[in-house]
Each structure stands twice: as structure tokens, then as C-alpha cells.
């Protein structure tokens, strides 16, 4: 196995994108299950079986030498440019891919470990994730508040040569299916909030962690909350520096914004996860509700399609502009905000097109548009609210004065938090 991968990496030195694409095409045809990209099989993030399936598919990619195209070779990846990943994404559209591993495992957690982790953490965890052996998630938000991430009150205290974590986390995506989590905790209460945080890589199956699923209003149980009760880890669990956790969290937020905007080079496969996340086929929807020939309805659908296409175009534009130094890195937030606005428009459009069929009738005959609409605001919150995104764009893209913050420069122990 190792030898095959070494050969692949070596040949990649001279392999052009077209050659890589041709080799990927042939390999995919032989090794990955074909699907109809217009109707991809649903990979439900709240079902354990789907995660097992994703791990198996990832293992196949790894064995075939197509895992981690943009991750460095020393971490088990191929060390190639984004153009190779994009070619692979195009070729793999009509095959079943382990898409649910992309976010947060690859695009956020592994990407952040690559930026801030120790050599040992990178080699061990990124490689394990690329082999399909590890799923990584984030334990960031807390019941006491979501947007003020640097105000977390989960504590990590020194006990001999161990760290002991106590507290509660919430809104962690897919944590039930994970092996490790990047967990932000407070290690120093006597300094301003950003300066007393440390990031830990904790095993999610630790006996001190009690995990509970959150049921969302649309029935999804993808998100979890965790109670940490004397969770002890060693120094090797610290990611980055002790009290330097905000730098690590900032990288996670950066990678998360890019992932939400679908422009991360660490994602593999660009198809839809199926089920609720399949883009609406408006032609089918208008037919379903007997409005296929209604120009008013066609215009509404056309506008949604325009915004959907521009969302994709903006992703590429911002990626290139940041790469070329035309826009600052914080411009990734433009993509996050646009994605939320577009998804909101699409859900509103679905509700408008289906009319009464969106609120009375059967799932699959129009009612799905109404059900989808009910959870509309989730996309305006997950990964940071759109209000926070607008602050980031105002302050870090346009360089406007920062918002007043009562806790700036104040030791966290003296700051009022929660309610």
C-alpha cells in the first residue's frame, strides 16, 4: 500500500492536469459506485450507516491514490494544486463520493491541523482521516452563547501533567459519528478573553463526554450537544500554544467560511449530499404543482437559478482574488454571506412556486418545499451568523472602525457573560 502511494506521488511530479484527469476517470470507472448526479443517493448526516459508508468510500479513494489531493504528501496526501482537485471533482460528479467527510473533517479540522498542529498531530490525524479511519469535528459553541466564540466558559485546568476539561458544548455537527474533536477551552481567566484560550484535540469517546443529539424543527438530528465532566488529556492534545487557542480557532473560522462557500481545496467531490441538500430542480417542481407553463412562476425560478449560478461564480472569483492579493483573506466571508442569501432566496422561491402544495399535501408532491422553508434561518446561523459575517466584511474587508466591545482588554474573570 505504502509503495503504491509513493509511486503515485512521485509520478505526480510530472503529471499534467489532463493526464491526472484521464487517470482519475479510468480509476473512478473501475472502483467507485456510479450514481445519477441529478438524483444523488441521500447521505443523511444523522444516520450512523451513512458515516460507515463514507469511511469505506474514503478508504477506497486512499487505496487508489486519490485521497487528500491538496494535502501534503508527508500527511498522506498528494501535495497537488487546487486545479487537480477541481479536475477530480468534475470527473467524480457521477460517482458516489464520501462527501459528508468534507466538512468539517477535511475542510476545517484537517486544514486547521495543517496550519497549526504539531508534526505528530498532522502525520497521525490527517493521515488517519485520509485513510477513512478518523472523523474529526469541532466543539466550539456553548449553550451560553454562539456568536461570541472567544467568550467560551468550558474550562481546562492543569492537574499534574494532564489537562482536565469541564463544561458544555453545543451545535457540534456530526459529533456522534466522530473520533476526535477540536475543543476550545479557557485555560486562563485572568487575561482578556482572546488571550486565555487553548485548543485541545479530544477523543470524542472519552468516558467523561456525554453526548446528546439535538432534534431540529425539521426532524434532523445531525447536531449534538456534549457535556464534559473531568475529561483528562495529555499535553499532546494541545493544538498550537497553551493560551494561544484563539489563533487556532481563527483558522477554523477561516476554513469554515471557505468550506461553507464551497471553495475549499481540501474538499473532495463537489456533488450534492442528496436528500434535503439536493439543489431544487425547478423545472420538475413547477411541473409537480401544475405551473410549468406559467411565465410568472418561470421568472421566479429563473431568478433563483441566476443567484445560484452567481453564488458559484463568486466562490471562484473570491478564491482567485484572495490568492492574488486583490482581496484580503477575510473576503471568504463574502462567500458565506452570499451562500446564506442565495439559500434563503431559493427556499422562499420554493414556497412561492408550490403555493398551497407547499403547505398541504405529501412530501415529494410539493410539501417538501414548505418543510425545507421552516428551517430556513439555519443557513443564516451555522458557521457564524450573517450579522457576524457583515461585521467581518465591514471591519476586516472594508476596514471600517470596529464595534464597541465591553470586554475588550478586560480580564475575562471580570466580564459579564451568558445571562
Amino acid at each position, binding site marked *: 500500500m505504502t509503495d503504491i502511494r509513493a509511486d503515485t506521488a512521485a509520478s505526480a511530479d510530472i503529471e499534467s492536469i489532463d493526464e491526472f484527469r484521464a487517470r482519475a476517470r479510468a480509476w473512478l470507472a473501475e472502483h467507485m459506485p456510479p450514481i445519477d448526479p441529478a438524483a444523488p443517493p441521500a447521505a443523511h448526516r444523522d444516520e450512523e450507516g451513512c458515516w460507515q459508508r463514507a469511511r469505506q468510500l474514503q478508504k477506497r479513494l486512499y487505496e487508489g491514490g486519490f485521497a487528500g489531493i491538496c494535502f501534503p504528501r508527508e500527511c498522506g496526501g498528494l501535495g497537488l494544486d487546487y486545479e487537480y482537485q477541481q479536475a477530480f471533482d468534475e470527473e467524480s460528479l457521477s460517482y458516489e463520493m464520501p462527501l459528508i467527510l468534507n466538512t468539517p473533517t477535511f475542510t476545517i479540522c484537517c486544514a486547521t491541523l495543517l496550519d497549526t498542529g504539531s508534526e505528530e498531530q498532522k502525520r497521525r490525524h490527517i493521515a488517519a482521516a485520509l485513510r477513512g479511519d478518523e472523523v474529526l469535528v469541532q466543539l466550539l459553541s456553548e449553550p451560553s452563547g454562539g456568536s461570541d466564540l472567544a467568550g467560551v466558559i468550558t474550562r481546562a485546568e492543569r492537574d499534574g501533567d494532564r489537562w482536565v476539561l469541564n463544561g458544555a458544548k453545543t451545535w457540534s455537527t456530526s459529533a456522534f459519528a466522530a473520533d476526535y474533536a477540536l475543543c476550545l477551552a479557557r485555560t486562563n481567566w485572568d487575561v482578556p478573553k482572546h488571550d486565555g484560550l487553548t485548543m485541545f484535540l479530544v477523543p470524542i469517546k472519552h468516558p467523561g463526554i456525554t453526548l446528546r443529539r439535538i432534534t431540529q424543527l425539521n426532524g434532523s438530528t445531525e447536531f449534538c450537544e456534549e457535556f464534559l465532566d473531568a475529561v483528562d488529556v495529555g499535553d499532546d492534545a494541545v493544538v498550537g500554544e497553551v493560551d494561544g487557542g484563539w489563533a487556532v480557532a481563527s483558522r477554523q473560522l477561516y476554513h469554515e467560511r471557505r468550506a461553507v462557500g464551497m471553495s475549499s481545496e481540501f474538499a473532495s467531490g463537489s456533488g450534492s449530499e442528496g436528500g434535503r441538500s439536493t439543489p431544487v430542480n425547478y423545472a420538475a417542481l413547477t411541473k409537480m404543482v401544475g405551473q410549468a407553463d406559467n411565465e410568472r412562476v418561470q421568472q421566479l425560478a429563473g431568478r433563483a437559478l441566476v443567484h445560484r449560478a452567481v453564488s458559484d461564480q463568486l466562490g471562484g472569483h473570491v478564491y482567485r482574488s484572495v490568492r492574488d492579493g486583490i482581496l484580503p483573506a477575510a473576503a471568504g466571508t463574502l462567500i458565506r454571506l452570499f451562500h446564506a442569501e442565495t439559500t434563503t432566496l431559493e427556499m422562499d422561491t420554493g414556497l412561492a412556486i408550490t403555493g398551497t402544495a407547499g403547505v398541504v399535501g405529501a412530501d415529494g408532491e410539493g410539501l417538501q418545499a414548505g418543510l425545507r422553508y421552516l428551517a430556513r434561518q439555519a443557513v443564516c446561523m451555522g458557521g457564524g451568523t450573517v450579522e457576524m459575517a457583515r461585521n467581518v466584511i*465591514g471591519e476586516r474587508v472594508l476596514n*471600517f472602525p470596529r464595534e464597541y466591545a465591553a470586554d475588550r482588554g478586560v480580564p475575562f474573570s471580570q466580564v459579564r457573560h451568558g445571562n
Partner: protein
Amino acid sequence: MTAVDSPEKILFASTTQAFLQKEVPLSRVRELHAQGVSFEPAWWRRAAELGWTALLVPEELGGGSVSGDGVADLAMVAEQLGKTVAPGPLYPVSTVLAGLVDSADPRSHEKTIESLIAGETVAAWAVYEPRQGWAPHEPSVTATATDSGYRIDGVKDRVEAGAHSDLLLVVARTGDGVGQFLVPTDAPGVRIEPQQSIDLVKQYARVHFDGVVTDGGAAIGGAAGLIDRQSQIAQVLQCAEVVGILQTVFDFTVAWALDRHSFGRPLASYQALKHRFADMKMWLEACRATTAAAVAAISARSPAAALSSSIAKSYVGEMATDIIQGCVQMHGGIGVTWEHDLHVYLRRAALYRSIFGTPEEHNLRVYQLQDAGQRAPRSA
């Protein structure tokens, strides 16, 4: 402009920019308006000498572009024009040239092409008809075959620079479909009525064709594909100019928000305003992204060019006027005065929102193209 532009393209861009700043700053645009002048023919000839009119024409027909990608170079010029909402018939001339160079026998139009490149001749595309929306393939103007050529009858309107043109490229219904015909404006039976527009200097015209007789050489072969190509060129140049307008307006509004103080604080420090600026920045970059994608698709003559052009025209049309009106709001009362330049930009953007297909018309088109199985173009 990107980090990978060649020195030649950078020089071309800076020459264009310097020419526009020196010759047609906003103060000059206001003067032209006060005099009721759309553009000065001598100025247009000097603009043509910079190479703007040669960009869509292949070298063998006397044209050429600096980067080898004439559509992209022309879009860059258009973006520069937006900075001062410059006058001139670049788009009507470019749209006619796009048709002539792609026609069945471009050599037969060599003299016209040469004269258009030199800025000696001005031509315009007569495509709209009274009380009709954007339906370039459905003319009611007729071209009836005669012994020696065609007889043109009917009315066109919203012809940009119609009253300043020597030639019109007229879309007309023939016995066996739709064709395009080059008609001199001094031909007997042609009557031109100027039409007011909301722009300060862009002027339009209604043109009556009353038994206008042309020779056989007036017919431009290859109609259906040509009309689509010309539509796309016309649409994407407007989008590119609007991107230049938006960048200019947004930049001076950001500067205003940082400088202007009320209650002892800069406007830019208020979250309510900051959030509006964040939205405008996002929409501006999205306009840039979708325009760049359309330029690339049209330049490459991609099968998705029509779809990409409609996506850009719809999106830019929808958002641009909102962004500028938002900037007016950020300025307060000064923003609705004649004295402030905001309205000069708003006029041009509002004009372009509607010409060559409203967002609503293009939304319908995007739906129908996608229903017919075209995939949305990826970003470019």
C-alpha cells in the same frame, strides 16, 4: 485586471484610463449634456486610434487585440468607461462589428469594417421595435426581396446613437426567416427621430423605414447565430461598464463614510450602516464575478455563452441600481442633488438595467435555457 495581465495589456489599460480621465472627466460629460451633445466625432476618432474599435476584428480584417482575447480587452475598456460614465458610440459600433466579422462573407464588408475601426464611420444596431420587449429574433420590420436587393419597411426604436450613425444594421423579417441588413442613414425613405434617455449623454433614436431600397450586398449572412453573438457582446459590455461604475461609486461612498462624522463618530462606525456596506461590497464582487464569467464564456464562444450572458445581465441589472441607490442613501440629502455626481452614475446604470433585456426577461430566459438542459456555467 488581474495579477497575471501582460505588460502590453497593462499599458493598453493605462493609456485608455489616462485618455478618459483627461478627455472626458465627469465635468466634460456634464458640459456635453448642457450643450445637448452626445459625443464629438473628432474625439471619437481619437478614441478609435487607441485601438478600442479593433479589438473584436481579426487581424486579417485590419483589427487586433493586445492580449489575443479581444472580448476581454474590450470589456476592460468598458469597465474604464464606467469610471467616468464616458460618452461615445463604442457599444453600437462594437455590436455591429461583431456581426460583420462573423458574417458569411466578412471580406465583402472590408471597407465598412476599416472605416468603423478608424472611427470615420459610426454604425448602430437597430434591433428593438416600438412597444416590444427584448425579442431580437422576432422583428416585424420587413425586408422584401426585389430584383436588385431588398426593400425595408417598418419602424425600429431605442437605437443607440441612431441620429449620429452613418449606417444601421437592421434586424428584419424576410421571406424565409430573419436577416440583418446594412442600411445607410442617408438612404431615401429613412427618417430618424431622436429619443430622450435618462442618461446625460447617451442618445437614442426611433428610425422609420419607408420603402428603403438596398442593394443585394446589404444582406449580412448567418443571421440567427449572429444575432445571439451580437446580443451577448452588447449585454456583456454593459455589465462590464456597470462594474466600473459600481466600483467608482462604492469607493467614493466608502471614503465618505469614513470621513463624515455625526454624533462625534464616523458614519462607518455605525453597525446599521456597516451592514449595508457589507451587503453592497458582496453584491459588487458578485457583479464582478458574474461579468468575468460571461466575458470568458462569450470570448471562448462556449455553448453556455447565451446562458452565462443572461445570468450576468440579470444579476448585474438587478443589483447595480440597488447598490447605487444604497450609496445615495449613505450620502444623505447631498445624494439627490444635481450637483453631486451620484445621479450621473445612477442614470447610466438604470439605463443599462433595462436595455438588451431586463432582469425579468433574462430570468425567464435562464429558466427556459436550463429547462432545455443547459448546465449553469462554472465560475471563470
